[in-house]
Protein backbone atom coordinates (compact mmCIF):
# COMPACT_ATOMS: atom_id res chain seq x y z
CA UNK A 1 0.00 0.00 0.00
CA UNK A 2 2.84 2.42 0.78
CA UNK A 3 5.29 2.91 -2.05
CA UNK A 4 8.47 4.95 -2.00
CA UNK A 5 10.05 5.44 -5.38
CA UNK A 6 13.54 6.80 -5.65
CA UNK A 7 12.98 9.04 -2.65
CA UNK A 8 15.66 11.51 -1.67
CA UNK A 9 15.68 13.68 1.45
CA UNK A 10 18.13 16.53 1.68
CA UNK A 11 18.27 18.85 4.67
CA UNK A 12 19.16 22.42 3.81
CA UNK A 13 22.59 23.43 4.99
CA UNK A 14 24.89 24.92 5.39
CA UNK A 15 26.20 22.51 4.33
CA UNK A 16 23.25 20.62 2.84
CA UNK A 17 23.04 17.05 3.99
CA UNK A 18 21.45 14.25 2.03
CA UNK A 19 20.05 11.83 4.59
CA UNK A 20 18.22 9.57 2.18
CA UNK A 21 19.67 8.90 -1.26
CA UNK A 22 17.18 7.55 -3.75
CA UNK A 23 15.37 4.84 -1.83
CA UNK A 24 12.76 2.38 -3.10
CA UNK A 25 10.59 0.75 -0.50
CA UNK A 26 7.13 -0.75 -0.41
CA UNK A 27 4.84 -1.90 2.35
CA UNK A 28 2.34 -4.48 1.05
CA UNK A 29 -1.15 -4.38 2.54
CA UNK A 30 -1.49 -6.27 5.78
CA UNK A 31 2.19 -6.98 6.21
CA UNK A 32 4.86 -5.83 8.62
CA UNK A 33 7.92 -4.39 6.99
CA UNK A 34 11.07 -3.91 8.97
CA UNK A 35 13.50 -1.13 8.19
CA UNK A 36 16.80 -1.63 9.92
CA UNK A 37 19.89 0.52 10.06
CA UNK A 38 22.43 2.02 12.41
CA UNK A 39 22.42 5.61 13.59
CA UNK A 40 22.70 8.07 10.73
CA UNK A 41 21.46 5.57 8.18
CA UNK A 42 18.47 7.78 7.32
CA UNK A 43 15.77 5.45 8.57
CA UNK A 44 14.03 8.07 10.68
CA UNK A 45 14.12 10.52 7.80
CA UNK A 46 12.19 7.98 5.76
CA UNK A 47 9.58 7.73 8.48
CA UNK A 48 9.19 11.49 8.64
CA UNK A 49 9.12 11.85 4.88
CA UNK A 50 6.50 9.14 4.48
CA UNK A 51 4.19 10.91 6.91
CA UNK A 52 4.83 14.33 5.38
CA UNK A 53 6.84 15.85 8.22
CA UNK A 54 10.05 16.19 6.25
CA UNK A 55 9.96 17.40 2.64
CA UNK A 56 11.08 14.99 -0.02
CA UNK A 57 13.54 16.55 -2.45
CA UNK A 58 13.25 13.92 -5.14
CA UNK A 59 11.12 10.90 -5.95
CA UNK A 60 7.55 9.94 -5.26
CA UNK A 61 5.57 8.52 -2.37
CA UNK A 62 2.18 6.91 -2.91
CA UNK A 63 -0.32 5.48 -0.48
CA UNK A 64 -2.85 3.11 -1.99
CA UNK A 65 -1.99 4.54 -5.37
CA UNK A 66 -2.60 8.14 -4.36
CA UNK A 67 0.31 10.55 -4.55
CA UNK A 68 1.25 11.78 -1.08
CA UNK A 69 4.65 13.25 -1.88
CA UNK A 70 5.03 16.46 0.13
CA UNK A 71 1.31 16.41 0.91
CA UNK A 72 -0.73 19.58 1.20
CA UNK A 73 -4.39 20.21 1.88
CA UNK A 74 -6.41 17.33 0.54
CA UNK A 75 -3.59 14.85 0.08
CA UNK A 76 -2.37 15.70 3.57
CA UNK A 77 -5.78 14.91 5.06
CA UNK A 78 -5.90 11.73 3.01
CA UNK A 79 -2.48 10.70 4.31
CA UNK A 80 -3.16 11.51 7.95
CA UNK A 81 -6.41 9.60 7.85
CA UNK A 82 -4.68 6.45 6.66
CA UNK A 83 -1.16 6.51 8.00
CA UNK A 84 0.10 7.29 11.47
CA UNK A 85 3.53 7.60 13.02
CA UNK A 86 4.56 6.67 16.56
CA UNK A 87 7.73 8.34 17.77
CA UNK A 88 10.72 7.00 19.60
CA UNK A 89 10.64 8.97 22.84
CA UNK A 90 7.26 8.67 24.53
CA UNK A 91 8.11 11.36 27.07
CA UNK A 92 8.83 13.88 24.33
CA UNK A 93 5.97 13.03 22.01
CA UNK A 94 3.13 13.90 24.37
CA UNK A 95 2.26 17.44 25.38
CA UNK A 96 3.37 17.80 29.03
CA UNK A 97 0.49 20.16 29.71
CA UNK A 98 -2.26 17.84 28.53
CA UNK A 99 -3.87 14.92 30.30
CA UNK A 100 -3.22 11.73 28.39
CA UNK A 101 -6.89 10.99 27.83
CA UNK A 102 -7.16 14.43 26.26
CA UNK A 103 -4.31 13.64 23.88
CA UNK A 104 -6.26 10.68 22.57
CA UNK A 105 -9.57 12.52 22.67
CA UNK A 106 -8.06 15.16 20.43
CA UNK A 107 -7.18 12.55 17.84
CA UNK A 108 -10.67 11.04 18.05
CA UNK A 109 -12.12 14.47 17.48
CA UNK A 110 -9.98 14.91 14.38
CA UNK A 111 -11.02 11.52 13.06
CA UNK A 112 -14.74 11.83 13.70
CA UNK A 113 -15.16 15.57 13.22
CA UNK A 114 -17.01 15.71 16.54
CA UNK A 115 -16.47 18.45 19.05
CA UNK A 116 -13.33 17.97 21.12
CA UNK A 117 -15.10 17.98 24.46
CA UNK A 118 -18.09 15.94 23.38
CA UNK A 119 -19.07 12.88 25.37
CA UNK A 120 -18.56 10.66 22.29
CA UNK A 121 -14.95 11.70 21.88
CA UNK A 122 -14.23 11.26 25.57
CA UNK A 123 -15.76 7.80 25.64
CA UNK A 124 -14.01 6.70 22.48
CA UNK A 125 -10.69 7.88 23.92
CA UNK A 126 -11.20 5.91 27.11
CA UNK A 127 -12.08 2.83 25.07
CA UNK A 128 -8.92 3.16 23.03
CA UNK A 129 -6.76 3.59 26.10
CA UNK A 130 -8.40 0.59 27.63
CA UNK A 131 -7.72 -1.41 24.49
CA UNK A 132 -3.97 -0.74 24.59
CA UNK A 133 -3.86 -1.57 28.27
CA UNK A 134 -3.60 1.79 30.01
CA UNK A 135 -5.15 1.39 33.45
CA UNK A 136 -8.23 3.48 34.27
CA UNK A 137 -6.44 5.28 37.08
CA UNK A 138 -3.82 6.63 34.69
CA UNK A 139 -6.13 8.17 32.14
CA UNK A 140 -6.54 11.47 33.94
CA UNK A 141 -2.87 11.89 34.57
CA UNK A 142 -0.24 14.02 32.92
CA UNK A 143 2.57 12.50 30.85
CA UNK A 144 5.33 13.01 33.40
CA UNK A 145 3.34 10.98 35.92
CA UNK A 146 3.47 7.83 33.81
CA UNK A 147 6.21 5.39 32.91
CA UNK A 148 7.72 5.20 29.45
CA UNK A 149 5.88 1.99 28.63
CA UNK A 150 2.53 3.48 29.59
CA UNK A 151 3.21 6.57 27.53
CA UNK A 152 4.13 4.52 24.50
CA UNK A 153 0.78 2.78 24.83
CA UNK A 154 -0.90 6.18 24.91
CA UNK A 155 0.92 7.19 21.74
CA UNK A 156 -0.22 4.00 20.07
CA UNK A 157 -3.80 4.58 21.21
CA UNK A 158 -3.66 8.08 19.79
CA UNK A 159 -2.45 6.78 16.45
CA UNK A 160 -5.20 4.13 16.47
CA UNK A 161 -7.83 6.81 17.03
CA UNK A 162 -7.56 7.73 13.37
CA UNK A 163 -8.13 4.10 12.39
CA UNK A 164 -5.09 4.06 10.15
CA UNK A 165 -4.42 1.30 7.70
CA UNK A 166 -0.68 1.91 8.03
CA UNK A 167 1.30 2.47 11.21
CA UNK A 168 4.87 3.68 11.05
CA UNK A 169 6.70 2.82 14.23
CA UNK A 170 10.01 4.64 14.64
CA UNK A 171 12.19 2.94 17.27
CA UNK A 172 9.20 2.74 19.58
CA UNK A 173 10.91 0.48 22.08
CA UNK A 174 14.40 1.93 21.94
CA UNK A 175 14.06 3.88 25.18
CA UNK A 176 12.23 1.17 27.11
CA UNK A 177 13.39 -1.55 29.45
CA UNK A 178 13.47 -5.05 27.99
CA UNK A 179 10.49 -6.37 29.93
CA UNK A 180 8.46 -3.35 28.88
CA UNK A 181 9.58 -3.78 25.32
CA UNK A 182 8.19 -7.32 25.34
CA UNK A 183 4.77 -6.04 26.29
CA UNK A 184 4.73 -3.33 23.65
CA UNK A 185 5.82 -5.81 20.99
CA UNK A 186 3.08 -8.21 22.05
CA UNK A 187 0.59 -5.38 21.95
CA UNK A 188 1.62 -4.43 18.43
CA UNK A 189 1.28 -8.01 17.24
CA UNK A 190 -2.10 -8.29 18.85
CA UNK A 191 -3.27 -5.05 17.24
CA UNK A 192 -2.12 -6.19 13.87
CA UNK A 193 -4.02 -9.45 14.21
CA UNK A 194 -7.17 -7.72 15.37
CA UNK A 195 -7.18 -4.60 13.24
CA UNK A 196 -5.31 -5.83 10.22
CA UNK A 197 -3.10 -2.74 9.92
CA UNK A 198 0.07 -2.69 7.90
CA UNK A 199 3.19 -1.72 9.77
CA UNK A 200 6.47 -0.16 8.88
CA UNK A 201 8.64 -0.97 11.86
CA UNK A 202 11.87 1.01 12.04
CA UNK A 203 14.59 -0.08 14.40
CA UNK A 204 18.29 -0.54 14.91
CA UNK A 205 17.56 -3.78 16.73
CA UNK A 206 17.79 -6.69 14.33
CA UNK A 207 16.37 -9.15 16.81
CA UNK A 208 13.15 -7.21 17.11
CA UNK A 209 12.87 -6.81 13.35
CA UNK A 210 13.48 -10.52 12.94
CA UNK A 211 10.72 -11.23 15.39
CA UNK A 212 8.15 -8.89 13.84
CA UNK A 213 8.78 -8.34 10.17
CA UNK A 214 7.74 -10.20 7.03
CA UNK A 215 9.88 -8.07 4.75
CA UNK A 216 13.13 -6.40 5.66
CA UNK A 217 15.04 -3.45 4.29
CA UNK A 218 18.58 -2.73 5.40
CA UNK A 219 19.89 0.82 5.19
CA UNK A 220 23.30 2.35 5.57
CA UNK A 221 24.40 5.97 5.12
CA UNK A 222 21.15 6.87 3.39
CA UNK A 223 21.31 4.04 0.90
CA UNK A 224 19.41 0.79 0.67
CA UNK A 225 21.85 -2.05 1.12
CA UNK A 226 19.60 -5.05 0.97
CA UNK A 227 15.92 -5.90 0.75
CA UNK A 228 13.91 -9.06 0.75
CA UNK A 229 11.70 -11.30 2.80
CA UNK A 230 12.76 -11.68 6.40
CA UNK A 231 13.92 -15.21 5.79
CA UNK A 232 16.03 -14.23 2.81
CA UNK A 233 17.71 -11.35 4.55
CA UNK A 234 18.33 -13.04 7.86
CA UNK A 235 19.12 -16.55 6.73
CA UNK A 236 20.97 -15.82 3.54
CA UNK A 237 22.18 -12.23 3.53
CA UNK A 238 23.74 -11.30 0.21
CA UNK A 239 25.56 -8.13 1.16
CA UNK A 240 28.70 -7.95 3.23
CA UNK A 241 27.27 -5.17 5.37
CA UNK A 242 24.17 -7.17 6.26
CA UNK A 243 26.34 -10.10 7.18
CA UNK A 244 28.50 -7.90 9.39
CA UNK A 245 25.43 -6.43 11.00
CA UNK A 246 23.96 -9.85 11.70
CA UNK A 247 27.12 -11.26 13.11
CA UNK A 248 27.42 -8.27 15.42
CA UNK A 249 24.08 -8.94 17.08
CA UNK A 250 24.60 -10.56 20.44
CA UNK A 251 22.68 -13.77 20.93
CA UNK A 252 22.18 -15.73 24.06
CA UNK A 253 25.11 -18.07 24.35
CA UNK A 254 26.58 -16.81 21.12
CA UNK A 255 30.15 -18.00 20.91
CA UNK A 256 32.05 -15.27 19.16
CA UNK A 257 34.42 -14.70 22.02
CA UNK A 258 34.09 -18.08 23.60
CA UNK A 259 37.40 -19.33 22.30
CA UNK A 260 39.16 -17.55 25.11
CA UNK A 261 37.18 -19.40 27.73
CA UNK A 262 37.72 -22.68 26.01
CA UNK A 263 41.43 -22.00 26.09
CA UNK A 264 41.32 -21.19 29.77
CA UNK A 265 39.28 -24.29 30.42
CA UNK A 266 41.49 -26.44 28.24
Amino acid at each position, binding site marked *: MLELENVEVTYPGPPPFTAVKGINLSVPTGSTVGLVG*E*SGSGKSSIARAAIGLTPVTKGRITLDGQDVTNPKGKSLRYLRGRAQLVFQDPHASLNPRMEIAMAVQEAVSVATGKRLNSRECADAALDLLDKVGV*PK*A*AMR*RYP*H*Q*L*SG*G*QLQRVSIARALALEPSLMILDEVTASL*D*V*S*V*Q*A*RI*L*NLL*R*QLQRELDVSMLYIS*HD*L*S*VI*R*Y*LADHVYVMRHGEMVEAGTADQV*FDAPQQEYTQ*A*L*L*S*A*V*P*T*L*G*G*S*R*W*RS*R*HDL*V*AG
Partner: protein
Amino acid sequence: MNADPVSNDILLDVRNLSISVENRDEIPPLVRNVSFHLNRGEIVGIVGESGSGKTLTSLAVSRLLPQGLSMSADRIDFDGHDLVGGSDRELRTVLGTNLAMVFQDPMQSLNPARKIGAQMIETVREHRGLSKKEARALAIRSLEDVHITEPAKRLKQYPHELSGGMRQRTMIAMGLMGEPSLILADEPTTALDVTVQAQVMQLLCDLNDRKGSAVLLISHNISLLSEVCDRIIVMFRGEIVEDLTTAKLLAGPDHPYTQGLIRAVPDLNTDRGVDLVTIEDGQFDVEREMNHA
Protein backbone atom coordinates in the same frame (compact mmCIF):
# COMPACT_ATOMS: atom_id res chain seq x y z
CA MET B 1 34.30 -23.69 30.98
CA ASN B 2 36.33 -23.13 34.00
CA ALA B 3 34.57 -21.05 36.59
CA ASP B 4 36.40 -22.40 39.58
CA PRO B 5 37.64 -19.42 41.55
CA VAL B 6 41.01 -19.76 43.15
CA SER B 7 40.23 -18.63 46.63
CA ASN B 8 43.22 -16.38 47.22
CA ASP B 9 42.78 -14.84 43.85
CA ILE B 10 39.89 -12.61 44.72
CA LEU B 11 40.34 -9.14 43.25
CA LEU B 12 37.16 -7.45 44.40
CA ASP B 13 35.09 -8.56 47.34
CA VAL B 14 31.88 -6.76 48.20
CA ARG B 15 29.88 -7.74 51.29
CA ASN B 16 26.51 -6.36 52.26
CA LEU B 17 26.62 -3.17 50.29
CA SER B 18 23.61 -0.89 50.76
CA ILE B 19 23.03 2.51 49.23
CA SER B 20 20.40 4.95 50.40
CA VAL B 21 19.36 8.53 49.96
CA GLU B 22 20.82 10.74 52.66
CA ASN B 23 18.40 12.27 55.12
CA ARG B 24 15.40 10.68 53.47
CA ASP B 25 14.48 7.75 55.66
CA GLU B 26 11.10 7.34 54.04
CA ILE B 27 12.74 6.28 50.78
CA PRO B 28 13.77 2.62 50.89
CA PRO B 29 17.45 1.93 50.15
CA LEU B 30 18.23 1.95 46.43
CA VAL B 31 20.62 -0.97 46.81
CA ARG B 32 20.14 -3.54 49.56
CA ASN B 33 22.67 -5.96 51.01
CA VAL B 34 24.50 -6.69 47.82
CA SER B 35 27.39 -9.14 48.08
CA PHE B 36 29.55 -10.44 45.28
CA HIS B 37 33.15 -11.01 44.36
CA LEU B 38 35.33 -10.89 41.31
CA ASN B 39 38.45 -12.94 40.68
CA ARG B 40 41.59 -11.76 39.00
CA GLY B 41 41.27 -11.90 35.24
CA GLU B 42 37.61 -12.74 35.36
CA ILE B 43 34.88 -11.12 33.27
CA VAL B 44 31.71 -10.69 35.27
CA GLY B 45 28.50 -9.10 34.12
CA ILE B 46 25.81 -7.35 36.09
CA VAL B 47 22.47 -7.36 34.34
CA GLY B 48 19.35 -5.52 35.33
CA GLU B 49 16.73 -3.08 34.13
CA SER B 50 16.62 0.58 34.94
CA GLY B 51 16.28 1.13 38.66
CA SER B 52 17.85 -2.20 39.50
CA GLY B 53 20.81 -0.55 41.19
CA LYS B 54 23.49 -1.90 38.91
CA THR B 55 25.03 1.46 38.12
CA LEU B 56 24.92 2.65 41.72
CA THR B 57 26.68 -0.53 42.78
CA SER B 58 29.51 0.14 40.36
CA LEU B 59 29.75 3.77 41.46
CA ALA B 60 29.89 2.71 45.10
CA VAL B 61 32.69 0.27 44.36
CA SER B 62 34.67 3.03 42.70
CA ARG B 63 33.78 5.50 45.48
CA LEU B 64 32.14 7.86 43.02
CA LEU B 65 28.61 7.92 44.38
CA PRO B 66 26.90 11.19 43.59
CA GLN B 67 26.25 13.70 46.35
CA GLY B 68 23.21 12.99 48.42
CA LEU B 69 23.63 9.22 48.42
CA SER B 70 25.33 7.32 51.18
CA MET B 71 26.59 3.77 51.28
CA SER B 72 27.29 1.23 53.94
CA ALA B 73 29.03 -2.11 53.59
CA ASP B 74 30.58 -4.72 55.79
CA ARG B 75 33.48 -4.80 53.47
CA ILE B 76 34.65 -3.79 50.05
CA ASP B 77 38.13 -5.08 49.32
CA PHE B 78 39.84 -4.21 46.11
CA ASP B 79 43.25 -5.61 45.32
CA GLY B 80 44.05 -5.94 48.99
CA HIS B 81 42.88 -2.44 49.90
CA ASP B 82 39.95 -1.69 52.13
CA LEU B 83 37.62 0.64 50.27
CA VAL B 84 35.20 1.14 53.13
CA GLY B 85 37.54 2.19 55.88
CA GLY B 86 40.42 3.57 53.85
CA SER B 87 40.84 7.27 53.36
CA ASP B 88 40.72 8.91 49.96
CA ARG B 89 44.34 9.92 50.31
CA GLU B 90 45.54 6.34 50.83
CA LEU B 91 43.40 5.02 48.04
CA ARG B 92 44.13 7.70 45.48
CA THR B 93 46.92 5.92 43.67
CA VAL B 94 45.27 2.52 43.88
CA LEU B 95 41.94 3.69 42.52
CA GLY B 96 43.57 6.07 40.06
CA THR B 97 45.66 3.41 38.39
CA ASN B 98 44.42 -0.08 39.24
CA LEU B 99 40.83 0.70 38.49
CA ALA B 100 39.75 1.93 35.07
CA MET B 101 36.27 3.27 34.53
CA VAL B 102 34.38 3.26 31.24
CA PHE B 103 31.06 5.08 31.23
CA GLN B 104 27.99 4.90 29.09
CA ASP B 105 28.11 8.03 27.02
CA PRO B 106 31.59 8.59 25.63
CA MET B 107 30.72 12.09 24.37
CA GLN B 108 29.74 13.32 27.79
CA SER B 109 32.39 11.41 29.62
CA LEU B 110 35.29 13.17 27.99
CA ASN B 111 35.87 16.80 28.85
CA PRO B 112 34.73 18.69 25.75
CA ALA B 113 37.02 21.65 26.37
CA ARG B 114 40.30 19.72 26.57
CA LYS B 115 42.38 17.86 24.04
CA ILE B 116 42.46 14.06 24.15
CA GLY B 117 46.17 14.00 24.93
CA ALA B 118 45.91 16.23 27.98
CA GLN B 119 43.11 14.08 29.35
CA MET B 120 44.98 10.85 28.76
CA ILE B 121 48.29 11.65 30.33
CA GLU B 122 47.15 13.24 33.56
CA THR B 123 46.64 9.96 35.43
CA VAL B 124 50.16 8.67 34.97
CA ARG B 125 51.68 12.09 35.36
CA GLU B 126 49.98 12.34 38.69
CA HIS B 127 50.21 8.86 40.11
CA ARG B 128 53.38 7.49 38.56
CA GLY B 129 55.28 10.70 38.10
CA LEU B 130 56.06 10.16 34.45
CA SER B 131 57.46 13.03 32.46
CA LYS B 132 55.33 14.61 29.81
CA LYS B 133 57.33 12.88 27.11
CA GLU B 134 57.10 9.44 28.68
CA ALA B 135 53.41 9.90 29.31
CA ARG B 136 52.77 10.91 25.72
CA ALA B 137 54.65 7.89 24.44
CA LEU B 138 52.58 5.71 26.73
CA ALA B 139 49.38 7.38 25.53
CA ILE B 140 50.30 6.64 21.93
CA ARG B 141 50.99 3.00 22.78
CA SER B 142 47.74 2.86 24.65
CA LEU B 143 45.77 4.23 21.71
CA GLU B 144 47.49 1.68 19.49
CA ASP B 145 46.38 -1.00 21.93
CA VAL B 146 42.77 -0.06 21.29
CA HIS B 147 43.39 0.03 17.54
CA ILE B 148 43.08 3.74 16.99
CA THR B 149 44.79 4.91 13.85
CA GLU B 150 47.15 7.89 13.81
CA PRO B 151 47.41 8.02 17.61
CA ALA B 152 49.82 10.97 17.61
CA LYS B 153 47.31 13.07 15.74
CA ARG B 154 44.44 12.05 18.02
CA LEU B 155 46.24 13.39 21.05
CA LYS B 156 45.92 16.87 19.61
CA GLN B 157 42.21 16.56 18.81
CA TYR B 158 39.15 17.46 20.85
CA PRO B 159 36.56 14.81 21.77
CA HIS B 160 33.94 16.25 19.44
CA GLU B 161 36.22 15.59 16.50
CA LEU B 162 36.11 11.83 17.02
CA SER B 163 33.34 9.36 16.18
CA GLY B 164 31.34 7.68 18.93
CA GLY B 165 33.13 4.36 18.71
CA MET B 166 36.49 6.07 18.66
CA ARG B 167 35.62 8.06 21.76
CA GLN B 168 34.68 4.96 23.65
CA ARG B 169 37.92 3.27 22.63
CA THR B 170 39.74 6.41 23.73
CA MET B 171 38.03 6.13 27.11
CA ILE B 172 39.26 2.56 27.37
CA ALA B 173 42.75 3.58 26.31
CA MET B 174 42.68 6.26 28.98
CA GLY B 175 41.86 3.63 31.56
CA LEU B 176 44.67 1.41 30.30
CA MET B 177 47.26 4.09 31.02
CA GLY B 178 47.37 3.00 34.64
CA GLU B 179 47.67 -0.71 33.80
CA PRO B 180 44.49 -1.53 35.68
CA SER B 181 43.71 -4.85 37.31
CA LEU B 182 40.01 -4.10 36.94
CA ILE B 183 38.07 -2.38 34.17
CA LEU B 184 34.68 -1.27 35.38
CA ALA B 185 32.49 -0.70 32.32
CA ASP B 186 28.99 0.69 32.86
CA GLU B 187 26.83 0.17 29.77
CA PRO B 188 29.84 0.97 27.59
CA THR B 189 28.05 0.24 24.33
CA THR B 190 24.48 1.36 24.96
CA ALA B 191 24.98 4.59 23.03
CA LEU B 192 26.75 2.83 20.16
CA ASP B 193 25.69 0.95 17.05
CA VAL B 194 25.80 -2.86 17.08
CA THR B 195 28.78 -3.09 14.79
CA VAL B 196 30.70 -0.67 16.99
CA GLN B 197 29.46 -2.50 20.04
CA ALA B 198 30.96 -5.67 18.68
CA GLN B 199 34.32 -3.95 18.21
CA VAL B 200 34.31 -2.56 21.74
CA MET B 201 33.37 -5.93 23.22
CA GLN B 202 36.06 -7.60 21.17
CA LEU B 203 38.49 -5.06 22.49
CA LEU B 204 37.53 -5.59 26.12
CA CYS B 205 37.87 -9.36 25.79
CA ASP B 206 41.14 -8.92 24.01
CA LEU B 207 42.55 -6.71 26.76
CA ASN B 208 41.36 -9.15 29.35
CA ASP B 209 43.21 -11.85 27.46
CA ARG B 210 46.44 -9.97 26.82
CA LYS B 211 46.78 -7.90 29.96
CA GLY B 212 44.84 -10.00 32.40
CA SER B 213 42.63 -7.12 33.54
CA ALA B 214 39.42 -8.31 35.12
CA VAL B 215 36.27 -6.73 33.70
CA LEU B 216 33.07 -5.88 35.52
CA LEU B 217 30.60 -5.29 32.72
CA ILE B 218 27.27 -3.69 33.45
CA SER B 219 24.49 -3.97 30.91
CA HIS B 220 20.76 -4.36 30.44
CA ASN B 221 21.43 -6.79 27.61
CA ILE B 222 21.68 -10.33 28.91
CA SER B 223 22.54 -11.76 25.50
CA LEU B 224 25.53 -9.47 25.24
CA LEU B 225 26.74 -10.49 28.68
CA SER B 226 26.24 -14.16 27.92
CA GLU B 227 28.65 -13.80 25.04
CA VAL B 228 31.55 -12.39 26.98
CA CYS B 229 31.17 -13.09 30.69
CA ASP B 230 32.32 -15.93 32.85
CA ARG B 231 29.72 -15.15 35.41
CA ILE B 232 26.56 -13.06 35.48
CA ILE B 233 24.96 -11.31 38.42
CA VAL B 234 21.27 -10.54 38.03
CA MET B 235 19.95 -7.51 39.88
CA PHE B 236 16.34 -6.52 40.41
CA ARG B 237 15.13 -3.51 42.36
CA GLY B 238 18.29 -3.03 44.34
CA GLU B 239 18.97 -6.65 45.15
CA ILE B 240 20.92 -9.48 43.64
CA VAL B 241 18.45 -12.18 42.72
CA GLU B 242 20.91 -14.58 41.19
CA ASP B 243 24.67 -14.93 40.74
CA LEU B 244 25.41 -17.68 38.25
CA THR B 245 27.95 -18.88 35.74
CA THR B 246 27.23 -18.30 32.09
CA ALA B 247 27.01 -22.04 31.56
CA LYS B 248 24.32 -22.25 34.20
CA LEU B 249 22.52 -19.30 32.63
CA LEU B 250 22.45 -21.05 29.29
CA ALA B 251 21.42 -24.36 30.82
CA GLY B 252 18.49 -22.65 32.50
CA PRO B 253 18.58 -20.32 35.48
CA ASP B 254 16.73 -21.13 38.68
CA HIS B 255 15.23 -17.77 39.41
CA PRO B 256 11.98 -16.83 37.64
CA TYR B 257 13.14 -13.28 37.09
CA THR B 258 16.24 -14.41 35.28
CA GLN B 259 14.16 -16.80 33.24
CA GLY B 260 11.78 -14.03 32.39
CA LEU B 261 14.59 -11.69 31.47
CA ILE B 262 15.89 -14.21 28.96
CA ARG B 263 12.58 -15.02 27.39
CA ALA B 264 11.26 -11.46 27.29
CA VAL B 265 13.87 -10.41 24.77
CA PRO B 266 13.58 -11.63 21.22
CA ASP B 267 16.74 -12.73 19.51
CA LEU B 268 17.39 -13.87 15.98
CA ASN B 269 16.06 -17.33 16.77
CA THR B 270 12.90 -16.42 18.63
CA ASP B 271 9.80 -18.23 17.43
CA ARG B 272 7.67 -15.72 15.60
CA GLY B 273 4.54 -17.72 16.14
CA VAL B 274 4.25 -17.06 19.85
CA ASP B 275 4.06 -13.97 21.99
CA LEU B 276 7.02 -12.93 24.05
CA VAL B 277 7.03 -13.88 27.68
CA THR B 278 6.46 -10.87 29.85
CA ILE B 279 7.59 -10.45 33.39
CA GLU B 280 4.47 -9.42 35.17
CA ASP B 281 3.61 -11.92 37.82
CA GLY B 282 3.28 -10.45 41.25
CA GLN B 283 6.50 -8.99 42.52
CA PHE B 284 8.12 -9.02 39.12
CA ASP B 285 5.84 -6.40 37.74
CA VAL B 286 8.67 -4.28 36.47
CA GLU B 287 6.70 -1.73 34.59
CA ARG B 288 5.37 0.09 37.55
CA GLU B 289 1.85 1.29 37.08
CA MET B 290 2.83 4.84 37.81
CA ASN B 291 5.95 6.61 38.77
CA HIS B 292 4.25 9.04 41.06
CA ALA B 293 1.17 7.38 42.39
